[in-house]
């Protein structure tokens, strides 16, 4: 039973973790992209379409990532090159993504998808209890963890990561030092788009192999909240995503067990947990400020 619950939690948490990790890098570079939901849903439709057309879920995932990158490029062009307001552009990106994906996906409605196969390592996967959890997941689950470690290492241990953080903390100084603020931010936004696209593709290729409009159902917004929840630290985003997945799945289990809680209250729990943790974190102001990218959401115009 516990094994089954953990397996379900992993699938519920993975799309959130993928998208949140991407957005974390974007925000660390000082850009606030509220269009995660739109990029995710584009990744979902592209992932499904490519999977159906080619018969390969792996290609579908790549397609999802590319679709996420392409729409994020629109956002980057509008906010970085044309210096439009980031909040408004991000919201517009979400609406745009939801609409365009519906249009693109029209002919795929009502078609069964192909599910991304899980890993099977003979011997290891068959181990009792831990076998399936550790060695029987699909590629994207491992990728989501690799991304957390990779991003952590990149931000804290590499020169490029240091530059990215510098751009996010004080774009004027970074510019004065000769770094291309706009260039760094372009790359960060595109990375975020690819990760959100992967998260979306996970939904339509691995989680529930089907395409329906709006199938992300708000997960992009949760990924955004997770970034703040994690106070811009990758491993905390992983904890947040799993906590959120766990509360979502456990509330379904407690209902099925017939524990007499009102279901509306249980459905509220994941969000309540997010709020509580946010409050708890913000109690430590210095640590919070330390991690918050100071230039977050501010447009940059080089003064030459």
């Amino acid at each position: 039973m516990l094994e089954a619950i953990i397996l379900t939690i992993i699938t519920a948490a993975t799309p959130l973790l993928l998208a949140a990790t991407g957005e974390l890098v974007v925000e660390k570079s000082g850009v606030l992209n509220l269009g995660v939901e739109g990029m995710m849903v584009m990744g979902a439709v592209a992932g499904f379409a490519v999977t159906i057309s080619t018969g390969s879920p792996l290609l579908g995932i790549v397609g999802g990532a590319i679709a996420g990158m392409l729409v994020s490029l629109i956002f980057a062009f509008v906010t970085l090159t044309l210096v439009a307001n980031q909040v408004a552009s991000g919201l517009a990106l979400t609406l745009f993504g939801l609409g365009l994906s519906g249009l693109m996906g029209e002919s795929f409605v009502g078609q069964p998808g192909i599910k991304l196969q899980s890993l099977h390592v003979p011997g290891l996967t068959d181990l009792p209890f831990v076998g399936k959890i550790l060695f029987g997941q699909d590629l994207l689950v491992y990728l989501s963890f690799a991304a957390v470690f990779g991003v952590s290492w990149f931000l804290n241990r590499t020169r490029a990561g240091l530059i990215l953080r510098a751009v996010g903390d004080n774009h004027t100084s970074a510019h004065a030092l000769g770094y291309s603020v706009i260039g760094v931010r372009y790359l960060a936004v595109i990375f975020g788009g690819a990760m959100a696209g992967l998260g979306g593709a996970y939904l339509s290729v691995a989680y529930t192999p089907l395409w329906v409009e709006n199938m992300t159902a708000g997960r992009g917004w949760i990924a955004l909240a997770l970034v703040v929840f994690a106070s811009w630290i990758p491993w905390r985003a992983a904890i947040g995503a799993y906590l959120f997945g766990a509360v979502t799945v456990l509330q379904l289990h407690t209902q099925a067990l017939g524990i007499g809680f009102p279901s509306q209250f249980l459905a509220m729990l994941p969000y309540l947990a997010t709020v509580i943790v946010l409050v708890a974190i913000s109690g430590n102001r210095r640590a919070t400020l330390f991690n918050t990218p100071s230039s977050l959401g501010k447009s940059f115009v080089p003064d030459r």
Partner: protein
Amino acid sequence: MKKLALLAGTALALAIGAVSGASAADKLKACWVYTGPIGDFGYSYQHDQGRLAVEKELGDKVETAYVENVAEGPDAERVFERFAREGCGIIFGTSFGFMDPELKVAKKFPDVKFEHATGYKSAPNMGLYNARFYEGRYILGQIAAKESEKGLAGYIVSFPIPEVVMGINAFMLGAQSINPDFKVKIVWVNSWFDPGKEADAAKALFDQGADIIVQHTDSTAAIQVAEERGLKGFGQSSDMIKFAPKAQMTAIVDDWGPHYIKSVKAVLDGTWKADDVWEGIKDGTVHMAEYTNMSDETKKLAEETEAKIVGGWNPFTGPIFDQDGKERYADGVVAPDADLLGMNWYVKGVDDKLPQ
């Protein structure tokens, strides 16, 4: 003489022009408001199929319009009002949660005709229509009780509205008619449409021992989980056999086309009046997808029950007891429609507390 003929011809042409001009202006605009995306392949999709059936049947006599993805509740009012102002002759609100906003707009626009699905409030210019889905759910209950090895079904539901409660009760009555000890586990996902959550709920229910899944939510996610696990379930709103060729035993398919055609025709003829239409399997509004993936015995039973329902028998025929063991309907008493449409109690044997 020649001149006269020419004149007559011109007059005739003018007259024809006038007539066709008038008919273009008289073209009826029929409008639909959907709660989900029409791409949900479930509830809203089926309503849209009904709209397309109207277009096909009545051709250039009508013009149709729709808005999808309209949130239930006060926000829907704007959509209804816009349609009313845009010159829609008849507006269909297709979901329970549109009831109050639609009624409000209907009162404001007495010349526009309104129809609301699955609700219970009406007005002189707002009729009601619904489908007796519970007839299908009774059959699902019988099939589940016959085919389940553990005597336990998982039931995924959206919101505690009468339509949904009625479905659970009909399902249980059907199941208990075969196996009096049949149990059901109920999970509320508080959404009509979130494939991920529906899949998680299905997994949770299967993990807790259910071997049949029933859903009153709109996507194919739950039945796909059943397929993956080699267990059984039912399609909802649409025939979902393509998604679960080995798991779907049957599906309750909504076919709104005949009703929409009838209503729109009535508006065209000027015979429309605010009705309360509640049609079921007999009228073709509710249609059972092919019975498959079950034993021949179960299939025969399902077909017999379907025939019995077509013959006029109501699954809500007493004796029916509620959860506390109180007798609600005595032996042979048929529950009146008004009771069904306001149903807010569970029948005996449902092990869940109804969210109030």
